[in-house]
């Protein structure tokens, strides 16, 4: 598992990268009440707004962590947004197809992420 400074987790699944948000991020956001997912087939660049998450408090963007194509989205979050709080590591947002999985090496590992959120 890898982590971004935007508090997303990245997990490799075959040749895809699965993206979600960390428990720390979910806790900071508070109770999630709405998730807007991207359309499959969308080409995104790292830093593009790829999803929107709304808690009782505010709306936040989920940014694409990498350049690539959105190939699958987790429709369960549309009907049960609370899964993001209940099981942040299980509540993936989307799966991306990227050219070169080795770019993941540039992201934080768990120890580095835990140091970041201290």
């Amino acid at each position, binding site marked *: 598992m890898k982590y971004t400074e935007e508090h997303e987790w990245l997990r490799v699944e075959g040749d895809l990268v699965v993206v979600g948000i960390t428990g720390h991020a979910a806790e900071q956001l*508070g*109770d999630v*009440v*709405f998730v*807007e997912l991207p359309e499959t087939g969308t080409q995104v660049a790292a830093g593009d707004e790829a999803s*929107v998450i*709304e808690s*009782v*408090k*505010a*709306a936040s963007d989920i940014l694409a962590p990498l350049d690539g194509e959105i190939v699958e989205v987790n429709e369960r979050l*549309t009907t049960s*947004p609370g899964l993001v709080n209940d099981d942040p590591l299980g509540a993936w947002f989307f799966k991306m197809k990227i050219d070169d999985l080795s770019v993941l090496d540039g992201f934080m590992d768990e120890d580095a992420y835990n140091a970041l959120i201290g």
Partner: protein
Amino acid sequence: MSDLKRLGLHDLHVELGGKLVPFAGYEMPVQYPMGVMKEHLHTRAEAGLFDVSHMGQVILKPKAGMAALIAGFEALMPVDVASLPEGRQRYGLFTNEAGGILDDLMFANRGDHLFVVVNAGCKEADIAHMTAKLGAVAEVIAITDRALLALQGPKAEAALEALVPGVAAMKFMDVAVLASPAHGEIWVSRSGYTGEDGFEISVAEAQAESFARALLASDGVAPIGLGARDSLRLEAGLCLYGHDIDTTTSPVEAGLTWAIQKVRRTGGAREGGFPGAARILAELAEAPARKRIGLRPEGRAPMREGVTLWDAAEGGTQVGLVTSGGFGPSVEAPVAMGYLSAGYDGPLFGEVRGRRHAVARAPMPFQPTTYKR
């Protein structure tokens, strides 16, 4: 946050795990470890304790009899003050010459004086306004040595009655000065801003912490932050000053005509005679240019303050603006309120992040109130 004022119960909020944020010049708990959603639902199911000591508590003590004070106070608001019996509280609005709202407030007749509670963000201006306008007929005394707590929800009555005997007999909008054996003189009103039955309680600062701790030790009472206070009042259809009402919105536009009793309207015994009467009476007669309405987004995306309302899914004309909105935990859906241009009764679309979503008009409150009348 060094330039922010601290509440008298600051240390208790920290001890309870409150997350403090700046609000109206104070460091205020926005939520506790329970979180906004559970705090909201807990208040509706059991009871919530809110620290609202940032609000302004003011005594208006007559210099030459209550009649002159009441007449002076009525001259600031389109509201019937004179008929309010001793021991009762009423909702009021200070208006400006343009018919806008300077603040909304609660005022109570306590026999030989009036007791007024105003919004935190407006309190200095309100006190200056009252001092300027009422200085000849009243002493305007800002109460700065008492905390103000709100206890709201179905278990509020039992919890408070155990500490302050006598409150159970009170009805919605009654006020009383009661003795608490352990916490001294308590000023109570049976009111609040959540849509639930409950009380607002003024207690001397020296006793406030032990009083709050005693309430928190009562069956079903949990500390609740500003986050849930906002979602509770939104579901109750109540306005938040500075968002849903301000100096540009008139009471008629805001749908607060219930607060303007007949006696102050055209044809009433004491018609007019308040700031902005020309506009407000004309709007009562002819309907205003825009009106505050309740909104239920048809999808799950919340429509928050600032969302524009349109007459078409694409293109078209803007016909309104959301002034408060979010997810309603009890309604289990997004709810909002905002202003809509008069005369438009067609379909509505709210623009969220560049996309238009259908939104329906809805009666308020969104959640039935449980006031004990």
